């Protein structure tokens, strides 16, 4: 009788141990952070800028820089695009570059890895249109894995 109680307790401890280890492992897998730098290539044949993307799939920080100044009355706006087949095609605005040519973006996204590209467009200052001016796109950065899922 006593032996069976001991065996049950040991079994329970082992099960609990395995469960805890597995959940910790899962958490680590989810928290794996990717840090990547991309060149934003210009559609006009010149490099438009660089972008740093740090993400664990959710917590995402993007920093981008450009040496260019937008035309008078205009501003550079960056977008995350999920251009995969069957994806929404919805562009997520990351905001505008400041007067020093820097863009900073931080967000807790549902799934950052669905995005495939970063695009830079030229938009009017205080633009009332929330959509990107596609024909005014000046640069694109094409993402690699783990993006584009």
């Amino acid at each position: 009788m006593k032996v069976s109680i001991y065996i049950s307790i040991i079994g329970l401890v082992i099960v609990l141990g395995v469960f805890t280890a597995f959940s910790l492992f899962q958490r680590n897998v989810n928290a794996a952070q990717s840090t990547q730098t991309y060149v934003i290539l210009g559609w006009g044949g010149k490099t438009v800028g660089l972008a740093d993307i740090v993400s664990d799939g959710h917590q995402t920080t993007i920093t981008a820089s450009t040496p260019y100044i937008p035309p008078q009355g205009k501003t550079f706006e960056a977008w995350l695009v999920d251009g995969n087949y069957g994806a929404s095609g919805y562009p997520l605005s990351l905001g505008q570059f400041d007067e020093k040519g820097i863009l900073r973006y931080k967000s807790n996204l549902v799934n950052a890895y669905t995005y495939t590209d970063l695009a830079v467009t030229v938009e009017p200052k205080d633009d009332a249109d929330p959509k990107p001016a596609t024909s005014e796109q000046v640069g694109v950065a094409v993402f690699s894995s783990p993006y584009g899922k």
Partner: protein
Amino acid sequence: MNCNKKNIKMQKNSHHLILLVPSIAIALVSIGMIFIPTVNQNAAAQSSQQQQQSQNANISIASVSAAARNLAQKLGINSTEVSIKPGQNMSELTQKLAPGGSLANFQEQLKGLGQQLGLNGTLQSQLGQQLPAVNITQLAQKLEQASAFIP
């Protein structure tokens, strides 16, 4: 006698009126013939402009991105990822962007693709005129400094 004079006057006036009405009509038709085609031409030009604009508006940013990625794959480039972190090989970036480098080649092809897709060429050349060449090392330093200030 007076009545006859009045009648003659009225007849004369009615003759004038009879002549005036067709003249006005002819004048109006002539004006119409001159102006309506012009107005139509303007309307046609405007509608073609609107069509062009709506065609441009119909190109979604996702399809432009997809076109860029397809081109990259054709050229054997998976992405525009580079290494610029401290301690990593900075020359990889400069090599890729140097004439003949993989990213430089991709960028050159993007130019042609952008023209095909109807991206604003004037805007691209305006930006191009701002800087003869981008100093990529300085740009990388600028990015590094900016990244350090993320709260």
